[in-house]
């Protein structure tokens, strides 16, 4: 990992680890059901037990996302959500005890300007970026800008990653490495890929300080299982679904709080498991 740049998310995860537990990382997209509505939803999620926020920037062509997140992102874009709304949302979410990472497809940052985006995200209080379609090999500008502005950069690894790529991705990441539990797009699955635990071990062996697991994690039981071997449990579609399925905003927030609390309890239940 980079010498000289402290990781906001890394420090937070280390603090939780000192308490003997993994982190719950919750994803919601900006702009669904509206920009203010999404800010309220994220605050609800934090209050209900999410430790780190993954704030999604809606994109027209989200190739790593399954139907639920696509549906929410489509609605957010139709509602006129802009990239700068993400910066505004970060400002209003940061400082509430949960560091905020923005999850974004790369063209949105390229278009904004990599350096300008890093500057604005940092001054809004954001912790860094999760980049599902940017591999470190293509990230020279982002590596420089994230160093300059003290931002975390979370790259992904997958069950198909070779040992060499696990090592280079771990070396380029700051905060944590995002391990995709299974080969596939985001969405709820009945089981978390059994390759996930192996992947976490391999990624640590390749030099990663912290590894969090996402893609397909949706139930409290799965959260317990993943929290027993990973530094964090990333949940997206299952949380977004509570808002998508709700008849109105208020009941959506209730359902979101309930789901989040259940997942947080699931993560906490793993705390007694020897790490």
């Amino acid at each position: 990992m980079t010498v000289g740049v402290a990781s906001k998310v890394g420090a937070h995860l280390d603090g939780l680890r000192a308490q003997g537990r993994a982190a719950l990382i919750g994803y919601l997209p900006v702009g669904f059901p509206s920009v203010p509505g999404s800010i309220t939803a994220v605050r609800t999620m934090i209050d209900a037990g999410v430790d780190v926020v993954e704030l999604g920037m809606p994109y027209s062509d989200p190739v790593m996302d399954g139907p639920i997140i696509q549906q929410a992102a489509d609605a957010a874009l139709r509602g006129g959500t802009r990239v700068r709304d993400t910066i505004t949302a970060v400002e209003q979410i940061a400082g509430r005890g949960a560091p905020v990472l923005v999850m974004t497809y790369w063209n949105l940052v390229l278009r904004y300007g990599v350096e300008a985006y890093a500057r604005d995200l940092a001054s809004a209080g954001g912790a860094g970026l999760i980049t599902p379609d940017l591999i470190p090999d293509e990230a020279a500008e982002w590596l420089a800008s994230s160093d300059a502005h003290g931002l975390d950069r979370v790259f992904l690894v997958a069950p198909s990653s070779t040992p060499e790529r696990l090592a280079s991705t771990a070396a380029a990441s700051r905060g944590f490495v995002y391990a995709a539990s299974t080969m596939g797009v985001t969405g709820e699955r009945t089981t978390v890929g059994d390759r996930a635990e192996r992947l976490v071990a391999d990624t640590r062996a390749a030099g990663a300080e912290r590894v969090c697991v996402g893609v397909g994690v949706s139930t409290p039981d799965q959260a317990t299982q993943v929290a027993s071997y990973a530094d964090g449990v990333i949940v997206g579609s299952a949380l977004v679904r509570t808002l998508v399925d709700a008849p109105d905003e208020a009941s959506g927030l209730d359902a979101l709080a309930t789901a989040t609390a259940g997942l947080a309890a699931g993560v906490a239940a793993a705390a007694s498991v020897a790490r």
Partner: protein
Amino acid sequence: MTETASTGRPYIQPEPSTGPLATHAGPYFGDFGGRFVPEALIAALDELDTAYHKAQADPAFGAELARLHRTYTGRPSPLTEVPRFAAHVGEGVRVFLKREDLNHTGSHKINNVLGQALLVKRMGKTRLIAETGAGQHGVATATAAALMDLECVVYMGEEDTQRQALNVARMELLGATVVPVKVGTRTLKDAINEALRDWVANVETTHYLLGTVTGPHPFPEMVRDFHKIIGEEARAQLATEIGRLPDAVVACVGGGSNAMGIFNAFLDDPEVRLFGFEAGGHGISSGKHAARFSGGEPGVLHGSRSYLLQDEDGQTLPSHSVSAGLDYPSVGPEHAWLHDIGRAQYRPVGDDEAMEAFRVLCRTEGIIPAIESAHALAGAIQLGREAREWSDEPVLLINLSGRGDKDVATAAAWFDLIEDEPVVKADEGEQL
């Protein structure tokens, strides 16, 4: 910057190319290209890259592909001089058509498909997926899958399955499964998104048979190489016919595979002008077009950096063209590079102009072109005046990339030959 302290690995800046343009290797074409895809796909792209370069060096692979070209596709495709059409281009101008429309399956697409399908057999994968807009690439892929005993799934935007119902039936007759894509704009770009999602989930058994010179490395380089036979044949055929190089090579540009295929053999002959014509749709100012060079800016879509129709935020903008095959918001990265270094020129051709050129070729030469290819024909007509300044007897080589059978319904409606409505109504439940 030349090195990133944080990874300890040197960052290699794309260097200006000094070698021949024709053999330029990926992943970068100047500032364009690359691999902007999820990490989950990198292993498969590396495997493909390795398999491709190994096959390239293996005479047995080349011999097998050449045999298929000769005995299955019907190569070499003819070169046809079209004097009655040329009279519409300009007095004294000679026009030659490279007849990719006469290939098996009706377009140039088969060249790339056979090459990749042979590679798939070598890699031991059993399932092909593909995207298709007009249906030409889907039909070609379904054809190769039948020939080589591979499972085949084709993703097609729901809107395109309606516009091109006949091609959907062709794919199904060939044993492929056609999946209508009902998300996003329901056109080609969304079909590619779905194909990429399928690939991420099934990459161990599945090859994504990408149909054009876009996408992550090695696709732009590999697909170009599988199509360069078009230009190589045309160059030799012209040498026989007229004993010299053409003054200009003209092609339509959607993703850009037929254009790269015919440009490649002439890239290192600076005296040969290269022109790509993209879909101007209803006109650049209307916003309804697929003119990436006139109306787009550099950005990333579907794995590579190139010119892109995008809004202020970097969201992809919907494209429009009367031709489904040109209706795509981005373009191959090598074209972006050739544009920026000035080696090729790219200009828009509107729906109206393309359809007029379509009509002219039908009436003057007895050849019904694909509407995609009609954009190249219209481009040649645009070039007519300036062509007269190039030489006493200017020679234009046009890639007639596909035939128009699939477009008969569209053209008949355009020219008011039939009532302007679908041949089969969707609500009658008997749609092909």
